[in-house]
C-alpha cells in the first residue's frame, strides 16, 4: 500500500502489519519538502477545510479575511444574508484587496487602482471605466469565488476542488459530535471574541496526532493535573465510564471519555461554588427536558477530542475549542484556536468557561506549551532519521478493545493520509 519510496526496502511511508500488530510511519513525511508539496496538491487542495463560524460574520456587510490551505480568502455576508468566500486578490494586477482582519462595509476597494467590488464579489466601479471594451466577458473582472463553500450548522468549510463530494457526506460520522457540541445551546453557539494565533516548530501532522492523543496526557501534562488537584482536591470525578476511540469515516476520528476537570456546560468543580453548582444543575435539567437524561448526560459529562481530516480539531473538554493549523514548511506550522460558547450563556458561566479554557489550552495555558515542547523535540529528533527512521503508532493493536490512551484514532488519520497521498480521492 501507499506512496512509493524510492530506494527503500519498504515501499510505503505508512506500514501497517496487522499480523504482528505494528503500525509505523516513515519520519520523512515530517521533513521532506516534496511530501509537503504533494500534501498541498492531494490533501489541502482536495479536502474540505474549516474556514470560519457563522457567528463571526453575523450581519449583512460583515466580513473577515483568513488564510486557509495556503490561500488568502475574504469571507463576507451579502445584503441577501448569504455568506460567500473569495480569493483575496484583485482580478486586475493581483494585489490583496482587503487588508483588514474583519469589519463591515458595502464594498471592497483595491488600493492600487481603486477597483471596487460588492459583497458578492462583482466589480462595481473603477476609474476610467469607459476605457474598457464592452466586449469583455461577463465576470472576468470580478473577484474569483472559492470553488465550494458550505456549512454544517454554522461551521463553514471551503473546498478548492469543484468536483469534491458534498460537505455533509465528507463530514460523515463527525456530524454526531458537532451535534453533541451545538445541541447544548438553544439560541446557537458563538465564537467568543479573541483568537489565539501561535506557531509550532513542528510538522502539521504532529499536531493532528497530538490533538487526540490520550496516551501523552499524564506524562506531558503532569503539572496540569497537579494544578487540578490543587484547585479541586480530587481527580476521580469522571461522571462517565466511556473510554473509546471511534472511526467517524473519511479519516475523521474521535476519542470520547470521562475526565476530572470541570465542564462549563454542566459539570461543576468546587471552585465554582454553590452558584456554579446551581447554574450547571439548571442547564443539565434543561438538557434532560430537551433530549432525555441519557443524551443530556453525554452532552454534560463526556469529553471528546475530534480531528476532522486533515486539520480541523473540535475539542470539547474543559472548554470547547476549534483549532486549525497549516504548514509554512515541513518543520513549521501556524495554529489558530477559538473558543466556542452558547450565545445565551450568563456572564458568570462565560467567565468560568474562559477561565477553564486558559487553565489548559493555548500558548499561556498549563498544558499546550508542553505540547509545543514535545512537538519541537520530535521535529528535532527527525534529524536522525537516516539511522532512526520510523515513528511507532502500534499501541492497542491486537487488543480486543481500543481505549482512548491507545493509538487507533491516529492510525485512522494516517490510513486516510496514506490513501490520499497514494492518489486515491473521493471525487463525485
Amino acid at each position, binding site marked *: 500500500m501507499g506512496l512509493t519510496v524510492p530506494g527503500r526496502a519498504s515501499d510505503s511511508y505508512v506500514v501497517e502489519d496487522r499480523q504482528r500488530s505494528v503500525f509505523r510511519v516513515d519520519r520523512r513525511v515530517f521533513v521532506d519538502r516534496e511530501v509537503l508539496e504533494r500534501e498541498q496538491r492531494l490533501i489541502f487542495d482536495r479536502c474540505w477545510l474549516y474556514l470560519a463560524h457563522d457567528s463571526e460574520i453575523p450581519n449583512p456587510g460583515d466580513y473577515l479575511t483568513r488564510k486557509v490551505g495556503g490561500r488568502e480568502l475574504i469571507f463576507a455576508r451579502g445584503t441577501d444574508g448569504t455568506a460567500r468566500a473569495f480569493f483575496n486578490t484583485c482580478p486586475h494586477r493581483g494585489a490583496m484587496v482587503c487588508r483588514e482582519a474583519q469589519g463591515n462595509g458595502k464594498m471592497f476597494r483595491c488600493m492600487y487602482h481603486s477597483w471596487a467590488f460588492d459583497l458578492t464579489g462583482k466589480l462595481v466601479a473603477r476609474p476610467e471605466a469607459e476605457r474598457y471594451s464592452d466586449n469583455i466577458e461577463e465576470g472576468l473582472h470580478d473577484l474569483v469565488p472559492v470553488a465550494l463553500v458550505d456549512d454544517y450548522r454554522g461551521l463553514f468549510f471551503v473546498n478548492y476542488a469543484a468536483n469534491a463530494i458534498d460537505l455533509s457526506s465528507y463530514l460523515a460520522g463527525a456530524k454526531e459530535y458537532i451535534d453533541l457540541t451545538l445541541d447544548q445551546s438553544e439560541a446557537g453557539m458563538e465564537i467568543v471574541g479573541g483568537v489565539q494565533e501561535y506557531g509550532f516548530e513542528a510538522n502539521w501532522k504532529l499536531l493532528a496526532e497530538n490533538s487526540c492523543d490520550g496516551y501523552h496526557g499524564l506524562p506531558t501534562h503532569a503539572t496540569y493535573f497537579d494544578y487540578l488537584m490543587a484547585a479541586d482536591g480530587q481527580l476521580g470525578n469522571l461522571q462517565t465510564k466511556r473510554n473509546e476511540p471511534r472511526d467517524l469515516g473519511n479519516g475523521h476520528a474521535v476519542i470520547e471519555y470521562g475526565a476530572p476537570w470541570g465542564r462549563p456546560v454542566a459539570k461543576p468543580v468546587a471552585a465554582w461554588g454553590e452558584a456554579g453548582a446551581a447554574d450547571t444543575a439548571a442547564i443539565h435539567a434543561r438538557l434532560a427536558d430537551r433530549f432525555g437524561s441519557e443524551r443530556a448526560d453525554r452532552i454534560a459529562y463526556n469529553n471528546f477530542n475530534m480531528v476532522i481530516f486533515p486539520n480541523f480539531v473540535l475539542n470539547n473538554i474543559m472548554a470547547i475549542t476549534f483549532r486549525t493549523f497549516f504548514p509554512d514548511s515541513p518543520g513549521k506550522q501556524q495554529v489558530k484556536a477559538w473558543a466556542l460558547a452558547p450565545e445565551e450563556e450568563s456572564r458568570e458561566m462565560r467567565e468560568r468557561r*474562559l477561565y477553564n479554557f486558559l487553565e489548559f489550552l493555548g500558548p499561556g495555558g498549563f498544558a499546550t506549551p508542553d505540547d509545543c*515542547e514535545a512537538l519541537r523535540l520530535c521535529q*528535532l529528533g527527525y534529524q536522525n532519521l537516516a539511522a532512526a527512521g520510523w515513528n511507532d503508532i502500534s499501541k492497542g493493536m491486537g487488543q480486543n478493545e481500543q481505549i482512548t490512551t491507545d493509538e487507533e484514532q491516529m492510525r485512522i488519520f494516517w490510513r486516510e493520509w496514506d490513501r490520499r497521498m497514494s492518489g486515491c480521492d473521493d471525487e463525485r
Partner: protein
Amino acid sequence: MLVTRAEVEDFLFEEAALLDAWRLDDWLELFAEGACYRVPPAGSPDEVDPATTLFYVADDYFRLTERVKRLNKPTAHVEFPKSRCRHLVSNVRIVSSTEDGLRVTSNYVTYRTKGGRTETYLGHHIYDLCLVHGLLRIRNKTSFLDTDNLNEQGKVSIIV
C-alpha cells in the same frame, strides 16, 4: 499616593531582575494578595475584559500562585532546562495616582533564548500598584503584545 517615578522604576527593574534570574517565588512576593496577571490577545484595547474575550493568560491570585509552582517544577517541560530570559523595561510613566494606588505603564522587550533560538516579546505593561506595609506591590499586571500573533514565539511559557 506619594511615590516618585524613580521609585517605581527601581521597583520595575527589580521585578525584571527577579524574572531574569528565574526567582519566581521572590517575584510572586511583589504581588498583593488577590492580584491578577493577564496577557490579552495581540492588539487589544487597554480595557479588554477576560470575562468576554479569550486571552492568552488570565490568572487570578490562586492561578498565578499555581503558575509559579508549575514553572518551578522540572515537569514544566517547556521550561526545562530553563530558558535564558532578558527583560528590558523602559518608558516608565505614572499615568494616574489616587490615594490608594498608582497606574503605571511601561514599554518592554523580553528575549527568551533556548535551544539555539531567541524569541522576542514586545509591547507594553499596565500596572496597578499599591502600598502594602509601606512597600510597593502589584495589584494587577497586564502585558499587552505588539506582535500580530505568536507564530514566532509559539507560547507564553515565561512571565513577559
